[in-house]
């Protein structure tokens, strides 16, 4: 096992730098050390000016999504040992506005989320107790509720790179999460929102999102399912 790894970190301070650059730090490895541990090592031992996001350190909060050695990953659940390279290159999420170092502005990402009516909507009065939902019905949303809104898929999608209006894989997967939920009664409304040129039809099934997702969700499948439902809905209207 490697004893020391070089962490090559993307640096950019808008107050000082005209252009971003990389800075290399030597990290003495501990067993099972993660990239997030490495970033903290830099912050505490080598350079207190480094900026990055973190919270849960266990892959559930979505804060530390980064572009590491050419792949989308959560820094906290990526071990140096599993990357098996002497130099580990860490970039912020591409295609989102840069704030400083590894921190990007997530506003464009959350704006898309807000557009798809991201909440369960019912038209009938709720039952006295819970809605009944069979295990089979529940299974339909089992995968998509794992989304932690980390932004990896959004950042990885070539369609979001070229069209800033595109809702993107995360927001569309969230839309599908509600359309597929047996309790939601706003499918027609939601389908209207996604049935546009910057909605589901902008997805050209590149599958980058599938590869990027650290929670092993398949956003492309959700988008395709939305397309099928939209077409079915359209036939019903006729």
């Amino acid at each position: 096992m490697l004893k020391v790894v070089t962490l090559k970190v993307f640096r950019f301070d808008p107050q000082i730098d005209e252009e971003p650059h990389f800075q290399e730090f030597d990290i003495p490895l501990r067993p099972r050390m993660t990239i997030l541990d490495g970033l903290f090592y830099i912050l505490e031992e080598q350079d207190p000016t480094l900026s990055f996001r973190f919270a849960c350190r266990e892959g559930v909060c979505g804060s530390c999504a980064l572009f590491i050695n050419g792949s989308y990953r959560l820094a906290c659940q990526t071990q140096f040992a599993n990357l098996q390279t002497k130099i580990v290159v860490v970039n912020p999420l591409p295609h989102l506005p840069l704030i400083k170092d590894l921190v990007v502005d997530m506003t464009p990402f959350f704006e898309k989320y807000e557009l798809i009516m991201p909440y369960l909507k019912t038209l009938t009065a709720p039952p006295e107790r819970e809605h009944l939902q069979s295990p089979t019905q529940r299974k339909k949303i089992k995968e998509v509720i794992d989304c932690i809104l980390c932004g990896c898929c959004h950042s990885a999608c070539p369609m979001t790179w070229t069209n800033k209006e595109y809702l993107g894989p995360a927001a569309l997967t969230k839309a599908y999460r509600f359309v597929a939920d047996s309790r939601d009664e706003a499918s027609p409304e939601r389908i209207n929102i996604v049935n546009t040129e910057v909605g589901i039809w902008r997805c050209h099934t590149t599958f980058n999102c599938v590869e990027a997702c650290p929670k092993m969700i398949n956003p492309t499948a959700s988008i395709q399912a939305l397309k099928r439902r939209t077409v079915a809905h359209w036939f019903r209207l006729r």
Partner: protein
Amino acid sequence: MVYHQVLVIGGGLAGLRAAIEVRRKGLDVALLSQVYAIRSHSNAAQGGINASLANIEAGRDDNWMKHAYDTVKGSDFLADQDAVEIMAKEAPAAIFELEHWGTPFSRTGDGKIDQRPFGGTEFPRTCFAADKTGRAIMHTLFEQANGLGIKFYPERVMLLLVATDDMCHGIVALNIVTGKLESFGAGAVILATGGYGRVYARSTNSLINTGSGMAIAYYAGAGLEDMEFVQFHPTSLVGTNILMTEACRSEGGYLINNQGERFMKNYAPALMELAPRDIVARAIQIEIQEGRGFENDYVLLDLRHLGEECILERLPEIRLHAINFANVDPIREPIPVQPAQHYSMGGVDCNTDGETEMQGFFASGECACVSIHGANRLGGNSLLETVIFGRRAGAKAAEYVKRKEKASVQEDTLEQALVNMQHRIVALTEGGGGEDPAQIRRELGQTMTEKVGIFREMQQMQEAVNKIADLKVRYQRLRPINHNRIFNLDLVRAYELEKMLDIADIIARGALVREESRGSHYRTDCRARDDEQWLKHTIAHYTPEGPRFSYRKVEITQWEPEARKY
């Protein structure tokens, strides 16, 4: 200055639920959070949320009284029973509300919300979404908050609670992204900033859980209640101390020592692995101390006999955590686990409506102490607390603001506080010596884990108090802190450290004074519970010389203290 009728600090479940309630009452509410609201530590809650729904056969005789009794007994009779009754009574409605809002609970064969047994309970009453219940509810409440158009201020660190004459006027915060200080005026402030896990070296908590919110309330005049009661979760992953939910054991997992023995039979023969957390944590610690652990550091949590199907369906994320962080697949190998700090029973002293001693200042969730957990919290009651008491605090804060004769915005007071804070930040960046804040933080964590941990003893706790005093002196001589404006982690962490030192001091001193063993507070030099002397809550108030302790009686409605056997 920005003004909102109600300002919620903290974007976890308690904060979100409070904000939703305020909005539903028609008031203008904003939520300020150190991270994006969806990133808060509530995400990490795994096993479930309690309510006596009696949805499954084994729980059909369950009711709110039994839930309340289990909670009171679990608390080692330190919980206020009037508060526990409210929580247990309101629990089913709160769960149905979450379900109606879209929480994807796991289901029984006939489509009802499924329930699993949890530690220290008579019936299976823990509702769950696989092993991701906190996250499932978190996303639901975030979604509802979005639907209601609640205004969010993400990535702001509260630096100061502004209060005069025991009345709260708002806060001063640091905008992490711009580096600018901002003042927020508010008719009422609801604190929902969670626990202080990172005061301990070994903790299951998020890295952002420093207890700063509690400390800032304390400086402004709020009391901190029962801070010496610190929950240690029995099963955290060795190395990272990531939580391995109690549901592992409620689904049938075994705890095994190096003799291959299910050692819980020697500690809690009736409930075995499902005894309350304080008891299981102590048992594991004894096994390790007496040489029956592995590498003198851990025991094994064995899930293999549950089978692949059960693990993949009901504990999928536990499996991923074990694989990702310990290189162990629980389907094939047992998981190495050890106890770690997990939860703060104590917090800002408040009543069942979240009201504190300070007018216009409310508290809810883990940062608050109502008190429903007393000396030991039962698993599944913390998520419940956030939604029940978050809602109640929100409703009361809304009522308070509506009742206020006229909005007396103290703009000058807030602006002055901002200027003063600006000077303090500059002083911090200039430094006063060469002390490394990260080193102080590490030493603090080690001290707390070693000396104010699962087993406590006078000498050790005194050493901890002395050590913390020493660290506080060293904190006054910090190296210059980074003065860069944008996303300055060095500054945020140095600022938090001061709060962490004070929180640790209150925990250690409170524990030192309490000469008995009760729930999570276990003293090897006085092992018995002493109801005559100590059936009372500890309240700490700030003085420049250190915490001043006072005590208050426990509310007992129907359950007189009895011996706690499982």
